């Protein structure tokens, strides 16, 4: 395996990790505030469809992004209403969001575009184009570092850079700001927040809204950057993988980056090596494709250390004496 191959695999790791990372951070905000969100998948899917559709009609990827975030926010508001205001079961509400998105996107897509539940292929300004960072071409010939910069660091769409910037931003917000302190507190012990004179409901809605925005970006990235348009079920379980990554990351932003990169790497390897020939046996492509999902199961089965979720997670807050 030569250096360029490794760089290409890593490059594709980055691209595949981005939707997972965004969804994982989205879940992080929500769950740190004590709202379990199994509906990441559905929100991403709805965002992917609406961003793809609006980008196809308007020809602008940025308008598509806005539409995606809007669609995701609407579903977030639904989840918030059910689980915060009406104190319903958060898992059921999340599952409902997933079903709603899975059915609605295909039906609406068929009604609008009549292409069998997909949006038209996007091209030009309707898609996020790779950005070449300054000096990438000039430095390409510098040994080792040149290709690293040109291949791996430069040449991604703006959404990729936004996603990676979200990691330190989230860390800073969580551990260095008043909002972060209160957010973490409300997921651990909402009664402490309430008696301190801060609105539990307000904080939780804020967290769910941030979750919606990030899922919106993730979905838009899938439809308008990673691929050219929306296709049925294009999230392919990424929302669930992001949840597994969130547990793996112990609800911390930097760990979330590492966890999602690991999942991204597995997907990249599966994409590149269809059959791996080990001499005596050949590992079939299906095994490779299944790797991220197998890892998800392993993580969820709790083989990887002990992860302590936010203590008030999943519990509606009811005032008591």
């Amino acid at each position, binding site marked *: 395996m030569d250096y360029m191959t490794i760089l290409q695999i890593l490059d594709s790791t980055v691209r595949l990790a981005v939707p997972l990372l965004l969804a994982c951070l989205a879940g992080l905000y929500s769950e740190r505030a004590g709202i379990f969100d199994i509906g990441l998948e559905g929100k991403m899917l709805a965002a992917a469809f609406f961003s793809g559709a609006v980008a196809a009609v308007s020809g602008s990827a940025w308008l598509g992004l806005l539409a995606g975030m809007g669609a995701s926010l609407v579903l977030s508001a639904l989840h918030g209403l059910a689980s915060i205001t009406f104190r319903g079961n958060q898992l059921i509400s999340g599952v409902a969001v997933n079903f709603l998105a899975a059915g609605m996107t295909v039906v609406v897509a068929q009604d609008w575009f009549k292409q069998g539940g997909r949006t038209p292929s996007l091209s030009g300004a309707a898609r996020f184009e790779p950005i070449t960072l300054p000096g990438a071409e000039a430095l390409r010939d510098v040994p080792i570092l040149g290709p690293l910069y040109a291949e791996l660091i430069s040449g991604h769409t703006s959404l990729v850079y936004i996603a990676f910037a979200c990691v330190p931003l989230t860390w800073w917000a969580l551990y*260095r*700001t008043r909002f972060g*302190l209160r957010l973490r507190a409300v997921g651990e012990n909402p009664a*402490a927040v309430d008696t301190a*004179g*801060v609105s539990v409901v307000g904080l939780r809605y804020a967290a769910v809204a941030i979750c919606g925005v990030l899922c919106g970006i993730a979905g838009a990235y899938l439809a308008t950057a990673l691929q050219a348009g929306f296709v049925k079920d294009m999230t392919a379980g990424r929302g669930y993988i992001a949840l597994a990554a969130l547990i793996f990351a112990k609800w911390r932003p930097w760990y979330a980056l590492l966890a999602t990169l690991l999942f991204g790497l597995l997907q990249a390897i599966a994409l590149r090596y269809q059959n791996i020939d080990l001499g005596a046996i050949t590992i079939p492509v299906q095994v490779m494709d299944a790797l991220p999902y197998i890892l998800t199961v392993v993580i969820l089965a709790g083989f990887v250390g002990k992860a302590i979720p936010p203590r008030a997670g999943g519990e509606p807050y009811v005032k008591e*004496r």
Partner: protein
Amino acid sequence: MSDVAPAIELKGISKAFGPVQANKDISIRVMPGTIHGIIGENGAGKSTLMSILYGFYKADKGEVFIHGKRTAIPDSQAAIAAGIGMVFQHFKLVENFTVLENVILGAEDGRLLRPSLAKARKELKRLAEDYGLNVDPDAVIEEIGVGMQQRVEILKALYRQADILILDEPTGVLTPAEANQLFRILDRLRAEGKTIVLITHKLREIMEITDTVSVMRRGQMTATVKTAETSPEQLAELMVGRKVLLRVDKAPAKPGAVVLDVQGLNVTDEKGVQRLKDVSLSIRAGEILGIAGVAGNGQSELLEVLGGMTRATGRITLNGEEIDLTGRHSDGQSRRARGIAHVPEDRQREGLIMDFFAWENVAFGYHRDPAYRRGVLMDNAALQEDTARKMEKFDVRPPNPWLTAKNFSGGNQQKIVVAREIERNPTLLLVGQPTRGVDIGAIEFIHNQIVALRDQGAAVLLVSVELDEILSLSDRIAVMFDGKIMGERLPGQTDAGELGLLMAGMNGRAA
């Protein structure tokens, strides 16, 4: 009274929860710089009244005056602004935050944490010096003891510049030593001019520290008196509405043959910590053995082993027959079949299922009793009848088998558990913290039932962190510390001082 305006004045406060009138036309004046006790049985409405003052509930009727000024308190924020701080019975702390983070939560200055934390650190140092409230600001809450956690709650209030401090049953979770420390702190706060409202149902605390005391009964304020001019007996009568015997009235024990004999009991928990170290003891028929000790020194494990909830090594015999400690017959079912009844320490977690009806709860542990069965089905009618009879006999209020367990007050919940276990006429009764969070009327009743069972010839193992309870109820006292029995004493020949030393692991004289 002088012309100083009261720190708190409530006028005609009423509050109803559905059909239940929790507070009825309550008026009260608390003078600044005093400690004012509010005493009453569980469910008398003390906590509701204070929750109204802290903006947790909204009163249906009535007015609040703070330092003579009429003040509306719609939420906790308003209460904090009015200078009111509250220390709840169940602490409102974020367990995995540091002390400092808990203190500033909700009272940060500005959007960034760093300056707030620095300011709070300085302020905590000052408060520690002023009031003797020493706490490590960087300690994580879940790693410090309850006494310390309570200090953090007080610090939270002081940091928000509270000059009125409400404490709801503050000593319920504390050891006697920690309670004394708390009282020293409260004394100091009073000397600095703070006004303190102390809610409790423990008469001793009221007599020890308060200046004035208000008594509540069934949602009404029945009296407000100067502490110096009253007596525990008078207060108890005002609380319960009838004369109460504060001492347990019992005849000397007439011990018979050895019922329970424990030899060399060892328990190691899943973390590898040895919880019981070579524990040996015996109890005779017609005898109450009291186990004293600070919570967490192995008493719970001892009860769990005897009750069949935890496995152990060693040898236990009941009436001379060995009991299975690890095998198939080491579960609670087998223990009950052998005549061991168990009133567990935590009634809400181990004694009852809070969402089940009283009659269902009365069946637990004994649901295989043929009297409750009709073929393969449960005989619910018989069970309900039996429950009604037990409720009648144990004075459970309200005596309705169709109420869920959580709808009873703490004392009545405990009576349901005690009735279930004692009515089986066990040969050995295990009782853990029989009166924790139970009002005095019910305490008297439960104590009398335990003594009555002893007089019928049962052996009783009593575990309690309340020294008074151990001293007044036991025929013999064993003290546990760090999983070991430190020594045995006779109640007439020892006192709280000596037991306290043993509880702290110091052996004053040869055991």
